[in-house]
């Protein structure tokens, strides 16, 4: 399988102000916000991956790095075996065509002075995917594909409803015939019915067109509905990664388990299984970052910072004492 993305120990830090150093003459030491720490992730062609996390998890930062908007502070990020920072101009232009992004603020991501037709035509004309004369028919085709009436082409983004404007954002992403679509919380804040329509649309499109989808969300239900793989993030680290079905049925990391328990369900009582606030990502301790809230934390957890290791055939977890891991059977010779 073709690896589209390969992230090797990617890190991203920001300096957010200073604080007084120890001792009178030390001056001020910078406060470091480590938004991403030791990320190891692969995205293969045709995958659908959901990046799940709450605030401070670093999921949005991770996507910004994968889109090339910012460079990693450490580690290496490859797209099709090339590092984003050292691509030639031509390769970079190709990259912008192959990778599309649907913003969380769909309406804000469109120039309010352009009509929908122009919004959709811009990327197509830019990458020379059609001629001026073909624009109208292509736009109609795109609108049809996302379930919008062709008259929408004459509207301005401000005149569309929340659900409609997100569909236009999906249409714009599709306009360049990309290989990978990134979407940031594209269904948050919508009515359930509109959300359901949009989710079905995304799922069907990715299946029909064989697109690779990377979807950021805080909602495990949406993640499992749309994607076959889930990566759970907590405070800048991928704490668990594997097939959706496996993660939902047998989570390996205590944080994933808490997320599942906190997810409202009709059959199961809501459990407030996690106490305390999400800690600040500034100056994290040098041990497991979840130890302060983990119900199963042990002494070892407060000393060592676990890295992501493979625990079953298809999933990895960053925990010293992972859950639901089958006993290692001695290699039995059949």
């Amino acid at each position, binding site marked *: 399988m073709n690896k589209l993305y390969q992230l090797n120990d990617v890190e991203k830090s920001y300096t957010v102000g200073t604080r007084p150093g120890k001792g009178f003459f030390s001056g001020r030491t910078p406060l470091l916000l480590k938004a991403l720490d030791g990320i190891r992730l692969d995205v293969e062609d045709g995958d659908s991956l959901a990046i799940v996390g709450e605030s401070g998890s670093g999921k949005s930062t991770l996507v910004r790095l994968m889109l090339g908007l910012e460079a990693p502070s450490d580690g290496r990020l490859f797209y099709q075996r090339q590092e984003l920072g050292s691509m030639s101009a031509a390769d970079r232009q190709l*990259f912008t065509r192959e990778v*599309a*992004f649907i913003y969380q*603020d769909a309406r804000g991501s*469109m120039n309010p002075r352009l009509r929908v037709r122009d919004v959709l035509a811009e990327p197509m004309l830019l990458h020379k995917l059609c001629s001026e004369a073909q624009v109208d028919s292509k736009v109609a085709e795109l609108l049809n594909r996302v379930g919008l009436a062709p008259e929408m082409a*004459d509207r301005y983004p401000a005149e569309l409803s929340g659900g409609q404007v997100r569909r236009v954002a999906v249409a714009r992403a599709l306009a360049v015939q990309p290989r990978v679509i990134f979407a940031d919380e594209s269904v948050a804040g919508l009515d359930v019915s*509109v959300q359901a329509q949009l989710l079905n649309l995304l799922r069907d499109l990715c299946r029909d067109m064989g697109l690779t989808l990377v979807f950021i969300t805080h909602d495990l239900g949406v993640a499992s509905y749309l994607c076959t793989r889930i990566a759970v993030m907590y405070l800048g680290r991928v704490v668990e990664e594997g097939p959706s079905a496996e993660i939902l049925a047998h989570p390996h990391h205590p944080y994933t388990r808490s997320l599942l328990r906190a997810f409202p369900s009709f059959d199961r009582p809501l459990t407030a299984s996690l106490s305390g606030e999400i800690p600040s990502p500034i100056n994290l301790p040098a041990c497991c970052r979840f130890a302060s809230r983990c119900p199963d934390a042990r002494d070892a957890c407060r000393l060592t910072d676990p890295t992501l290791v493979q625990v079953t055939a298809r999933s990895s977890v960053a925990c010293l004492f992972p859950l639901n891991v089958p006993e290692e059977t001695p290699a039995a010779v059949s």
Partner: protein
Amino acid sequence: MTAISSTSATAGPAQAGWRRRYWQPVRRQPTAIAGLVIVGLFAFMALFAPWLSTHDPVVQNFADALQGPSLSHFLGTDSFGQDLFSRVLHGTRLALGIGVASVALGMAGGMLIGLVAGLAGGKVEWALMRVVDALLAFPEIILAIAFVAVFGMGVDKVIYALAVSFIGPFARIVRSDVLQVKALPFIEAAQLMGVPRVQIILRHLLPNVAPSLLVQAGIRISTAILLESGLSFFSIGVVPPTPDLGLMIAEGRAFITMAPWISGFPGGALAILLVGLTLLGDGLSNAFNPRSQGR
């Protein structure tokens, strides 16, 4: 997050959209309508001044001097026997001409500086803004007087003088608008799509900076006209016998008790024009202010 409601889609072809976006907000503001009527009237007079005038505005006829309003001279004559009606018409023409030209020129200069400053950032922005600060430190009229003192009088010099004093405010407005728009998501989205920088500036940045700029420009035209009339009143603006409202008011000063119409009519015309422009400017800025637009 609040769930976003699905508003009922308003059907309508492109033309209806244009009307809805531009005409209706204006229609709802009574000040804008009043201003539009007044300015429209004056613009009409200014445009057709050569055809509407009954006499040549600069021809002197001492036999007819200092006459009150009559059928042959609608607004009377001044001390040189020049027909006031024709002079007021041409004066309006000149006033609007100078006002629009100086604002346009100032806007162009200010836009260039503001754009470069807002986009470049860093030291370039700092340096440019200090130049702008220097310009803004002078009251507009002082700057204009200084310019005229150096370069001389006349219609064209007045236009340049006023333009220089407008560069400062426009540069500042454009720079802050550029900074604001630059941070909006759709600019980054365009970058992500691979749109070249120049196209981002022309297609995405400028059209979103322009509207507030145009409204500001409209407001400044009245300032320009007032400044220009002021300069001419103090005899450091246009050169007589150019029909200019400020100049006419000055010329009538000596005859205020005997023939008040010599200052009165130009003064009144100027006042009404300025009020009309102010109303229009206020009304337009209210109409297109996103906060006051009841969605």
